[in-house]
Structure formats: structure tokens, C-alpha cells
């Protein structure tokens, strides 16, 4: 039993607490916050290193034998998700330090960010359905709080649909959890796998899979369940938007992959087909929405939706190749999407607005930023050999081998729409002649913000150069997610104190 999965959950909890008590914003506090995120990232990267051949690290909270306690299970997919999430968080935290003068920073932002990270890590690590619900709630309530703490009377409105739809999602999830307990008599993923053997083909299980998929799709922002997303994200401060964009919807996708791939046996095939078509619609509608918007943050928010569709399209194939592609797109997207939001934040800081019709001239004023944007935007659009390309390639391959031409076409349209909107931003914000007054970039904070984004850019370029290992890792992760018996065995072989005879110290 390795304590590391539990550490990955507890570390952000304690950093959140420390930051809660240490209320006064200062460089030292931000440094502490960054340091803790980095420590967490290092821990998770180490976990990823340990699981890179498909090993599974599991531990039981409370030292109970599975399936009685709560299992924390880290496989390659979870480990890399956690690592990327905390890397993104560290950057966002650093960015949010430069975003505002220390005296104006909100003291609650940091504790809430770390709370959200705790929820995210728990969601990635947990091997228990109800605990997954709790993890979702932690991230969600922290995100509700982040959404409202720094908003004025105009922006606060958009928190309403955000909260309302997510509450519906939570109710669905809780309903599903209850029904799963009734049907399987357990909540532990590994135990569900074992007990589901006799239920293959049972319509009741398909009902559950559908409800769970619905609940997770709401979190992921699948059309037509996405209404909470496009209006609310733009009201966030850029650093928070980056974190939300890089993290929240991805937890939903992760949960879908985990549930469809690992936990539940193949359900009624229509479910996957429906998911695939839904993803196709999502990819196109998200892309179309992005093309039509006029503010950078709005474009990026719609893109999140489109990209979710692009991730779920190959996943719905339910093949290993499809899952590999989905996972790779997922990883790449976490990094790229957050850095684009941060770039949008710098643009916002320079111009006071990010409305494309009112800005311009950034290529001349800030070539460094333009370079960062070009790399991330073209990566998002899947231009080779940047990190977005590999997922796209694998997705094409997976779709073609299964003869799903309609999905392939939808994915390609989604990709083209992404490119169109990225070019739109480039042409208006960066290439176009500067507007009056010309943007000034003398403020040192801008340079620091741009330098912060470079960290994520390095990560993107790293995923480009090291595409080989990255693809391999995602293949291992996909194999791990789809290896139901392996997952069940490695969890159920744990032995807790109840089998060792008492827990006296």
C-alpha cells in the first residue's frame, strides 16, 4: 500500500488551510502557494513515473480492506492528469500573483484554488463512486465560490446558470450513486467490476450508465448540457479562467472515460453511439460558437466545448486506439487551453478589453506574447508537429479503423473551426494595426505575466518534442483504463487491518 495517492489529496488540503489562515496577500504567500503546487506536481509526476508501464498504485483510506473503505487508486491516466493539473495550477497561481498588485489581491482566491485542486486530485485518484461524488462537490463548490468572490453586480448574474445546472448534475449523480449501490451492493469501482459479471446485458445497468454519462456530460459541458459554461467562464479573472478551463470540464471527461472504460462492462451499444453523435454535435457547435464570438475569452470558452467534443468522439469508439486519442487530446488540452486563457488575460491587461474589434497591434508591441500565442493557438488547432496534432492523428486513425466516417468528418470540421477562430484572434489582436491608444507594454507586470505563460509553452513544446514517449504513455494509460480485471485485481488484493486482525497500535 503506497501512501502517495493519499498524499496527493492531503497536500492541497493543507496548503489550502495554510493559505486560509495566512490571509494577507504578499509575494511570500504567493510563493508558498506556487511552491505547494509545484511540490504537488512533483509528487504527481513521480507517481506518473512509477506508473508509466501501467502499474497501479492503490491505497485504502483508513486501512480497511477493499471494498469496505475508500480506495485511492492511481493508474497512469490519473497520475498524469493530476500532474498536469497541478502544473497548470502552479502556473495559474503564479500568474494570479502578477495579475494584480498584492494589495488588491483577494485573500480567498488561493485557499479556494487549492481546495479545488484537492477536489480534482481526489476525483482523479478515487476508486469509489460516492467518493467521486464528494470530490466533484469539492471542486464544484470551490468553483462556485471562486466564481463569485471577485465579481461585481454585473458579472454575478452568470453564476446563476452555472450553479443551477451543476446542481441538477449533482442531483443526477447522487441518484445514480444510490441506484448503483442498490444494484451492485457496493460503491467501490473494483468491487463493481467483480459484481457486474452477472449483470452484463442487463437493461438496469444501461440505465445507470446513461444517468452517469448524463451527469458527467453536464460537468464536461457536452452540448446540449453546456449552458453553464460559455457565459460564466468569461466573467472569471484570467488566472481562474485558466484553471477552470484547464481543469473542470476535464474532470467530467476523465469520469466518463473511467466509468465507460473501467467500471462498467460494455452496455447497450446504442449508448456509445449516442455519445459519439452527441460528441460530434458538441465539436461542431462548440467550434461554430467560437467562430462567431468577438471576445477572446468568449472564443476560448466556446472552444472548451468544442474540444470536449473532440475528446469524446474517439472515446465513444470504445476501442483502445480511441481511448488513446481521447487521453492524448485531454492532456494536451489541459495545458494549451489554460495558457490561452492566460494569454487572453495579458491582452486584457494591456488593452483593458479583449473585444477583437477594439484591440490590435500586439505583434509589434509584444512579439514575445505573439509567439506564445502562435505556438499555443496552432497547437490547439492541431497543426503538426505541435502537441495537438498527435491526438488528432490518433483520433483519425481510430475513427477510420472503425469506419465511423460521420464522426471523423465532424471531428475534422471541429478542427477547422478551431483554426478559423484562432486565425481570427491572431489577425485581429496581434497582426492588425494597433488601435488608439497604442498598447503599452512598459509595465513590468506584463513581462512577468508573459514569462509565466512561457512555462506552459515549454510544456507544450515538450509534449511536441517528446511526442513519442507521450503517445506511448497515453497508450499505456488507455490500456490501463480499459483493463478491467487488472484494475479490480490490483485493488482487491490490498489487505487492510480488518483482515490482519485488529488495529491496535
Amino acid at each position: 500500500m503506497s501512501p502517495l495517492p493519499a498524499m496527493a489529496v492531503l497536500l492541497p488540503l493543507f496548503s489550502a488551510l495554510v493559505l486560509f489562515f495566512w490571509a494577507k496577500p504578499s509575494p511570500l504567500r504567493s510563493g508558498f502557494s506556487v511552491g505547494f503546487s509545484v511540490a504537488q506536481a512533483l509528487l504527481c509526476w513521480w507517481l506518473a513515473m512509477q506508473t508509466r508501464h501501467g502499474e497501479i498504485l492503490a491505497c485504502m483510506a483508513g486501512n480497511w480492506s477493499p471494498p469496505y473503505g475508500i480506495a485511492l487508486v492511481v493508474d497512469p491516466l490519473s497520475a498524469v492528469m493530476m500532474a498536469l493539473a497541478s502544473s497548470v495550477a502552479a502556473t495559474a497561481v503564479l500568474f494570479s500573483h502578477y495579475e494584480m498588485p498584492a494589495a488588491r489581491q483577494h485573500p480567498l482566491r488561493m485557499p479556494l484554488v487549492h481546495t479545488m485542486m484537492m477536489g480534482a486530485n481526489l476525483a482523479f485518484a478515487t476508486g469509489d463512486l460516492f467518493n467521486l461524488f464528494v470530490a466533484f462537490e469539492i471542486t464544484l463548490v470551490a468553483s462556485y465560490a471562486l466564481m463569485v468572490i471577485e465579481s461585481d453586480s454585473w458579472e454575478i448574474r452568470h453564476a446563476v446558470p452555472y450553479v443551477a445546472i451543476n446542481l441538477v448534475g449533482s442531483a443526477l449523480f447522487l441518484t445514480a450513486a444510490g441506484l448503483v449501490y442498490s444494484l451492485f451492493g457496493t460503491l467501490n469501482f473494483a468491487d463493481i467490476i467483480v459484481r457486474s459479471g452477472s449483470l452484463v446485458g442487463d437493461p438496469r445497468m444501461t440505465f445507470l450508465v446513461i444517468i452517469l454519462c448524463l451527469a458527467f456530460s453536464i460537468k464536461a459541458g457536452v452540448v446540449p448540457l453546456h449552458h453553464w459554461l460559455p457565459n460564466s467562464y468569461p466573467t472569471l479573472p484570467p488566472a481562474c479562467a485558466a484553471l477552470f478551463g484547464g481543469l473542470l470540464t476535464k474532470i467530467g471527461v476523465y469520469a466518463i472515460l473511467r466509468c465507460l472504460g473501467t467500471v462498467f462492462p460494455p452496455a447497450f451499444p446504442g449508448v456509445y453511439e449516442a455519445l459519439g453523435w452527441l460528441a460530434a454535435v458538441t465539436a461542431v457547435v462548440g467550434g461554430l460558437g467560437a467562430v462567431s464570438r468577438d471576445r477572446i475569452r468568449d472564443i476560448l470558452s466556446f472552444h472548451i466545448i468544442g474540444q470536449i467534443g473532440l475528446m469524446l468522439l474517439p472515446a465513444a469508439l470504445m476501442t483502445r486506439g480511441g481511448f488513446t486519442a481521447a487521453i492524448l487530446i485531454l492532456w494536451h488540452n489541459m495545458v494549451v487551453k489554460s495558457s490561452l486563457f492566460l494569454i487572453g488575460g495579458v491582452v486584457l491587461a494591456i488593452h483593458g478589453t479583449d473585444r477583437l474589434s477594439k484591440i490590435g497591434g500586439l505583434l509589434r508591441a509584444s512579439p514575445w506574447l505573439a509567439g506564445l500565442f502562435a505556438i499555443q493557438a496552432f497547437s490547439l488547432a492541431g497543426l503538426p508537429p505541435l502537441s495537438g496534432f498527435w491526438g488528432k492523428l490518433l483520433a483519425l486513425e481510430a475513427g477510420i479503423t472503425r469506419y465511423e466516417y460521420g464522426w471523423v468528418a465532424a471531428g475534422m470540421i471541429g478542427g477547422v473551426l478551431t483554426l478559423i477562430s484562432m486565425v481570427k484572434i491572431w489577425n485581429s489582436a496581434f497582426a492588425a494595426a494597433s488601435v488608439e491608444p497604442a498598447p503599452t507594454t512598459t509595465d513590468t507586470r506584463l513581462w512577468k505575466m508573459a514569462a509565466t505563460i512561457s512555462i506552459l509553452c515549454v510544456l507544450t513544446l515538450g509534449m511536441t518534442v517528446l511526442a513519442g514517449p507521450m503517445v506511448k504513455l497515453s497508450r499505456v494509460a488507455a490500456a490501463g483504463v480499459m483493463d478491467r480485471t487488472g484494475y479490480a485485481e490490483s485493488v482487491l488484493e490490498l489487505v487492510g487491518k480488518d483482515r490482519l486482525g485488529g488495529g491496535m497500535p
Partner: protein
Amino acid sequence: MSLGLGLALVLLLPAAGALAVALVPRRWLPFPGFIALGVAMASLCGVLAIGSKAGAHPSFVLDWSWVPECGLSLSFLVDGLSLFFAVIVLGMGVLVLVYSRGYMAGREGDHRRFYAGLLFFMGSMLGTVFSNNLLLLFIFWELTGLASFLLIGFEHTSEEARRGARMSLLVTAVTGLVMLLGIVMLKQVTGTYDLATILRSPLPQTHKDWLDACLVLLVVGAFGKSAIFPFHFWLPNAMTAPTPVSAYLHSATMVKLGIFLCARLFPIFGERELWAPLLGVPAFSTMLLGAVLALMSSDLKAILAYSTVSQLGYLIGYYALGPNGGVDYDYLHILNHLFYKGSLFMVAGIVEHAAGSRDIGKLGGLAPRLPLTAASCAIACAAMAGLPLTTGFLSKEFMLKEIFSAFSVHGYLGSFAVVCVVLTSLLKVAFSAKIILRVFFGKEPETVTAHFHAPSAWMTLPPAVLSGCALLAGIAPSFLNPLLQPFTVPGLHAGTAEHFQIWHGWTRELWVSLAVVLAGLALYRVSHYGDRPCPGVPSYLKAERLFEWLHEKTIAAGRASVRLFQTDREQSAVLAVTAFAGVTLGAFAWKQVFAGGFGPLLQFVDFTGGMSPLRLLVGVFIVLPALGLVLFRSWGGQLACLGISGFMVTVYFVLGRAPDLALTQLLVETVSIVAIYLLLGRCAKQGLLEQWSDLPSSAMAQGLRVAVSCSVAAAVGVLILVVTGMPHHNPVGNFFIRHTEDMAHGKNAVNTILVDFRGLDTLGEITVLLAAMLGCLGLLMRYRRNSEEQKQGRDLTPGLGLGEEGKS
């Protein structure tokens, strides 16, 4: 030095040069142009050395694995085709860089970005032609498109440049994506991305439809890059690029990638029936269309661009009609085009620089002032028109000869090709005459006199070199044979090329040529009689308008989709979500019922079990207040209903043998009611509550709301009945009952589960509580924009405004 290392150096040099030029500060690298030139020359030497060492036999070098999981390796193929294109790319690159030195002098913009872009392009172009892996080829292919995008948009402040750049990027990227699909499908058939392997082994005969699909998809990519109809429109719009870029990318090299791809594909797909019509029809149509548009245009660069489109059409069509054994004169045609078109583009740049205009209506009489340029232009135009003593003549002779022989083989396609080629040759004569006569002869307009700047030798020499080549090779064509011979590729070339000669006797081709020249001159005379201005391209032939229309429609579709799929209002959003959930579940249930009747679902339901009158009674007292909540209008009544319903749930918990739950529910309900009471009281006092609590909505909305609520309620009811009807016989809960005392040292199993067995849930839950508290506190404080931020508007996220460090 080994071949591999040499090739690596050749490929890396431009990339490294690009990085150095782009990133090293200006004061350390004062002359980016010279560095670029040096890099290009070094690479050229390298390629020549590799060529001499490798000889004519294809060899593979550098098989470094990059992404083995995707079948991608850094594997390069050195053969005649790749060497030929590499030499073109680098040779032309050297000339263009020399030319750029003069062209860019005194121009605005960051020259480092320009030279870095050129070197970046050069590197990716070399990568494309040397790639032995189709994926690698695609990667470099897209990079050339990216380089083109950045270079077209070099003068990024001009709206036109941005539009042209966007158009070229979108067209090439979309067609590239289609090509990628073709590559992936080809891999599914052949099992590899390795070009040499595919070339070596015949295609499997099992996937005929797939192979044709692959071919179509791959060819779309080639068409996009080489501006073949219907993608021809991006090339003239790319002319907003600086002239060296036009000369280099959009005439000599990048647009030839489509031709390169066809040459690569020819040995693979050349024998398929689809090959000839698929390539031929669009290619020859493009050829004719381009020539017509060139004659109509008045902008010098537009004429050249359309004529490039036309020539590209021919070059692709040439492969289409190629006999199965292989083609022979493709290099000649490519080289010829390179000589004259490169020269003409550079001349156009000189003219623009010198006279301040590219519109041939506003030019004239420049020959005395620019003798060398005029001579270069004259030779190049002669080559374009196919007059004797130039390579153009040679090229046209062979063109006509082959077309006449292919004529009978290909049936209708052959006749179509003949008509197109002859008409195009005629048109070419006409617009060649137009260029030389209108620009360099006639009367010099006053605007030109006023503006005239003499070009530097940096600018005038490169076109002279190119024209000189065209002339030299035209006069002494026998030189060309030994030059082109080493580049022959088995499979592509039949190797039966005739020896080039200046005089072939009074052949059929010569007579046709003569007729064409005369007819062309007559056409020019008729169409441009006197001072009649050029007609210009009529708007119905401007396909870019279609593209822009499509682009705008996409955005409009985006807006429409947002209107259709997106709502701000929380209740319509929730309505959409719940309705969708209900529909999905309903659809599945219906499908089940449809498949097997109600039996399969009802078998799980246990209707008789678990009915208890007492619980039912309590249930009535839970549901009735809930209904009251729906129906009542007064806030007091609603609050009472809410309270009663909640407290009756407590009783229900008691009946469910859950004392802990009952206590918790009681307390939570109390605190919640207090909070809601505070809210209502406050709002009522300020008149913020609407009098009529259930606000009126349209009949349809109301109906939808009732329908969704009722159907979701029914769905949930059925779901519970079906799923919980036969619970699992051995739930894990039993374990907790059995062992709560001996292992968790507590009698209350619920509590031991909460703090011990599933303590992590509880830990998470109190974290939720804390986060909710912080959220509530955040809600109770409102951000207030200061005057500075109010001025900047609502787009600005609070607190992000800069320049306030001093104030705070």
C-alpha cells in the same frame, strides 16, 4: 562525412538559422539577410555534395524513430526527385535572398522576422521533399503552409495582407487535413507510412474503394497546395506578400509541392483508372481558367499569379496524362517555369519599387531607364510565350508533342487537354506581349517619372541570372540533358527522353506553335487595342468571393447556433438539460420496451413489497406540502410548506430506522428555514420580492415546464422501481454492521462509517462546508470598480487594470 550526417546538417541549417535570426537580439546580429544568404548557400553546397555522393540511386538516410507508436520516424529519402526539388529550393532561395537584400532595404517592418520566415520555409520545404515517411512529409507540408501564412502576413497592418494570409492558410490547412486523412487511410491499407516500402511493394488489391478514396483525398491536398481549381483563388490573393516571397513561395517552390506529391504518387497510383480523369479534368480546366484570368488582370503580380496557376495546372495535368511507363519531361517544364516566372516576379518587384505601381495601366516606357531589367523581362516573357531560343520553346515543343500523342489514348480527356493546351498557349503569348509592351514600352506616365527610384544591383541581378539561364538553355539545350539525367527516378520516369535540340525540323508542333504565336499576338492586339484598359477579372469569376462568403456564412452559422443552442437564462438552461436527460432515458426505455415488451423491465419490479400504511401516510404529508409549495402564491405559505415537508422527511427517516438522519435533517432544516426566513424578510422589506411569486410565462413555456417536470418525475419513479426492485443480495453495508463494534469500536454503525470506514467522504464533505462558507462571504462583499475601471468598461475583469500600482 556520412550521407546521413550531411543531410541532417542541410536540414538543420535553415532551421537553426531561422531561430538565430528570430531570437538573437538585433545588436548581436546586425545583418540578418547575410546570415540567411550564407545559410542558404551552405545548404545548397551540402545538397550538391550529397547529390554527387548519392548518385542516381535512391538511398535512405537517417532513420531516427520519433513517435514509433504512430509509425513516425525521421526517415529521409534521397533520390532524384528529392534532390531535384532540393536544388531548386536552395538555388532559388539563394537568388531570392540576394534579391531580398535590395528589396527590403529601406522597408518598414521587422526584417528579422522576414528572413527568419524565409529560412523557416526553406527548412520545412527541404524536409518535405526529403521525407521518406508520409506523416513526416505531412508535418513539413503543413509547416510550409504556416511559413507561407506568416510571410504573406508580413506586412500585417494591411487588411489585405491579413485576408490573403488567412485565405491561404485556411485553404492549404483544410486541404492538408483532407490529405492527412488520405495518408492515414493509405496506412490502413498498406500498413506503413514508409514511402520507400510503399513504392517498392505493389498496392494490395483488397481495398479497391479505399484506395480510390485515398487517392482522391491525397490529390485534394495536392490541389490545395498547388492552387488547382477549385482552390485556385488563394494564390492571387497571396500576392499581398512581399515580392521576394511571391517569387519564392508562390511561384517557384511551395506551390510546386502539389506537383511534387503527384510525382511521388505517380508510381503508386499511376495505373489506377481514376488517376487520369481525377487529375486531368481539374488540372487542365485550371490551366485554361488561369490563362484567361491572367489576360484579364491589370495588376502585374496578379497576371503573374494567374499565369502561375495556369502553369501549375499544366504540370499536374502532365502527370495525369502520363503513360504508365513513366513521364519524361517534367523536370524540363518545372525548370522552365522556374526560370521565367521567378525572373518575372522579381521584375515585377523592381518595377513596383522603381515606378511605385504594379498596375500596367499606370506604367510604360521603362525600358530606357531599366535596360537590364527590361532585357530580363523580355527574355522571360519570350520564354513564357514559348518563343524560340528560350527554354520555353523547348518546353512547349515537347508539351505539344506529348499532348498530340496522348490525345488518342485518353479519349475525351485527351481532346479536352489538347484544346486547353492550345488555347492556353495562345493566351500566354497574348499576356506575355501585354507585360513587356505595356510596362517597358510606350509612353512613360508622369506619375512614374515623378516617383522613379533606381533599383540597386542586388535587385536587378537575380532576375538577369534567371533569364540568362532561360536563354542559355534555350540556345544550347544539349547542356540540359546531362544536367537532368542524374535526377531520373525509376517508376516515375520512363528514361526515354529525347536529346534536347534547338531544331527538330518542320514538325507538326512547330506549325502549331507558329500559329499559336501569331494568333496570340492578334489576340493581344484585339483585346488591348490602343489605350483600352484591361477589363479586370469580372466578379463572377472571383472565387475568393465565394470563399469570403463561406467564411462569413460560417460566422453567421455560428451566431445562429449560439442563438439556437445557448441561453443565458437559468431556467431555460435547466429546462434544456432536464428535458435532454429525460429524452435520453425515455428513448432508451422505449427502445427496451420496443425490443421486448414491458416484460424485461417489469421483471425487476417488486410491486407488493415494502408498502407500509404508516410510511405512506407520512409520505402524503411530505408530498402535500410540496404540492402546496407549487400552488401557493404567498411567501409565508410557501415557507410553511417547505418547513412542513422538510420536517416530515425527518419523520420518514425515523420510520426508516435512521435516527442520525432524523436528527441531522431536523437541525439542518431548522437552520435552512432560518436562513430563508432572513432572505424573504429582507427582500420583502425592500419590495424586492415579486408580489406574484410564480411569475407568468407564455403558455408554451408553462406547458413545457409542466410536461418536463411530470415526465421526469415519472421517469424517476419508474427508474427507482426498476433498479431498486431487486437489490443486491449482499451489500457491503452488512460488513459495517457486523464489525462496527469490534473493529471501529463504536456501536453506531452510521457514525463509524462516517468517521472511520468512510472517513475520506466526511473529510471531503467538511471541505465542501468550508468552501461554501468562503463562497457565502465572497457573495456578501461586492467588487466595486473604481473610476479608472469604470472608464474602461465591463470587459475588464475587476482588478486587472494596470498602472494602479502606485495608487494602492
